[in-house]
């Protein structure tokens, strides 16, 4: 636009309006396809071998816990020795791995194929493998949904406190401080004792998983959102001073619009990471409560209750304790390592 030949002229230089030459086009063209924040993060994540391996383990475990029960010939609550109209056949109880009950042996002798009990059966004659699969499913589901609940509540309250500030912030943060200083495990135990007996879930879709698990979700929702809320408030506090927020405010955007469209997407990495690290935490708590007998209602198994049941026959059936224990450790360890990998990949600032 600036005419070098006539510096004080108000006339525009017509040369400036000519179409770009090939050389100029070449100059502004991209050297390589642009990469988004998400793509960059994924690339870094894939380079991290430990995180990738953990992700594969998580996917395999999750998929098998969902898919295996669909075609497995046994169910988690069927006592194989119990047949309608006949006395219970105790030969099905406490089977060692790959052994069979009396009627099954007869069928094998008759040339029939009987699906093996890979991990044997438990003291009630239930196929142990499918119980472990169901237990894994319950534990994963509790971990996953509890984190989602925590995420939603924490995100909403944290972003409101951070964005609006002032009195709203002070009140919310005082409540957060208060809940934060409560000993969480004790409150969880207390509430699950009470809610487990107060809630009536008969006849609803929740009847199968039982009131204890529902109360566990409620307790998670009530207590664990505070750290998420603190984290997001801190992020929003620094983000809301940015120019693009000012410009959005100047153009008349409402508070909820700015939070949704500008602030939350910018702290998405922190949100993803802390949610991922929240899942193993919830699985820990669930298995702890199930171990104390406050978790899922029988006959539904969870990894914690399976381990707790196995403790009675520890000398003769050690593998029954080892199997759920190994599965819990595997899940929690891979989730932790994957969460660490996520943090390294998506938040280089945090990686000190």
């Amino acid at each position, binding site marked *: 636009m600036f005419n070098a030949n006539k510096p004080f002229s108000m006339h525009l230089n017509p040369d400036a309006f000519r179409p770009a030459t090939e050389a100029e086009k070449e100059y502004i063209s991209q050297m390589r396809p642009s990469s988004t924040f998400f793509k960059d993060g994924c690339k870094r994540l894939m380079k991290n071998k430990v995180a990738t391996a953990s992700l594969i383990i998580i996917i395999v475990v999750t998929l098998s816990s969902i898919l295996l029960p669909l075609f497995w010939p046994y169910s988690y609550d069927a006592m194989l020795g119990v047949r309608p109209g006949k006395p219970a056949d105790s030969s099905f109880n406490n089977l060692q791995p790959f052994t069979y009950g009396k009627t099954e042996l007869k069928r094998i002798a008759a040339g029939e194929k009987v699906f093996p009990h890979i991990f044997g059966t438990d003291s009630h004659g239930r196929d142990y493998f499918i119980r472990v699969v169901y237990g894994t499913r319950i534990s994963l589901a509790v971990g996953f949904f509890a984190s989602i609940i925590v995420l939603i509540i924490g995100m909403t309250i944290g972003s409101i406190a951070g964005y609006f500030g002032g009195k709203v912030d002070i009140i919310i943060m005082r409540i957060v*401080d*208060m809940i934060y*200083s*409560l*000993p*969480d*495990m*004790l*409150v969880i*135990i*207390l*509430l699950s*004792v*009470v809610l487990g*007996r*107060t809630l009536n879930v008969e006849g609803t879709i929740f009847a199968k998983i039982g009131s204890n698990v529902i109360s566990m979700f409620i307790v998670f929702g009530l207590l664990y959102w505070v750290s998420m809320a603190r984290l997001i408030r801190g992020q929003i506090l620094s983000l809301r001073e940015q120019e693009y927020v000012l410009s959005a405010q100047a153009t008349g955007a409402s508070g909820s619009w700015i939070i949704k469209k500008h602030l939350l997407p910018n702290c998405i990495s922190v949100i993803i990471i802390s949610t991922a690290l929240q899942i*193993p935490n919830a699985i*820990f708590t669930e*298995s*702890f409560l199930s*171990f*104390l*007998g*406050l978790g899922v209602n029988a006959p539904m198994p969870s990894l*914690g209750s399976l*381990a*707790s049941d196995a*403790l009675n026959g*520890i*000398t003769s059936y*050690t593998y029954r*304790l*080892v199997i759920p*224990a190994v599965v*819990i*450790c595997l899940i*929690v*360890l891979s989730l*932790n*390592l994957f969460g660490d990998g996520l943090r390294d990949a998506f938040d280089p600032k945090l990686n*000190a």
Partner: protein
Amino acid sequence: MSSKMLYYILKRILLAILTIWIVITVTFFVMHAVPGGPFVGEKAISKEAQAALEAKYGLDKPLFEQYTTYLRDIVTKFDFGPSLKQRGRQVIDIIMDGMKTSAKLGLIAACLAAVTGIVLGAVAAIRRNTLLDKIIMVITTAFVSMPSFIMGSFLLIIFSVSLKWLPANGAMQGGLVLPVITLMLYPMSYITRLTRSSMLDVLGQDYIRTARAKGVSRWSIIFGHALKNSLIPVITYFGPMLAFIVTGSMVVEQIFAVPGIGRQFVSSITNRDYTMIMGTTIFLASLIVIMNLVSDLLYKVVDPRIEFE
């Protein structure tokens, strides 16, 4: 001591008292919201007998009056009322009985965890990126990912069932060894990781370089300059560590049959011993709140750089 600091300490103490009051209130009203009450259940009892029982335990009075009486008894006499299931015993006596064993267990575990954790963390930081460091980090990561009941069960299988080195029953001679190890492994691993990262942070500081440039010996730098400063974040973990040990002891005492407060608590839950559940929850919660307060205040006192809000 500056007035700002005094104000901060006062504020924290008030917050702690408020928290304990909330715990008492929530526990009381939540436990009284359970439908049926403590005497409805296993055996059907006559109306008169139930009324007599309720009169005996003061359950026939209005709820708010029961609450004020309960609160007053705790504050003035440290009295949590009688146990509903262990007839003739006071809740506080049962708690104190269990605490004798549990406190021993917890204190030994906490001290061992702190000492070994700090040593391992410091070693890992000094020998950074060597094989030793990697081994320590892998082991502690594994321990942190292991729920305490699994750790306890594995130790039980290995040392009591297979090797028969140590008794599986915590009440027997040498029976506390396995429970202590079970309880200490998680906090130890956590402290190791905490010490390692804060030690690495400190070792990169300017004053360490200055000391090295002045020719201070390696060990003098580690013990005189680095270790002391890198322990500050570890102090903040003491509160959460106690909370972990309290909840962990419930599981550990269950596994190893240790006659402690955690086992009492779990059995009171299954027995529906309401006053016992309330009393134990309030007692343990207050313990944790007070310990959190102490470790927070200590943290601020030890490190003068930390600002008081």
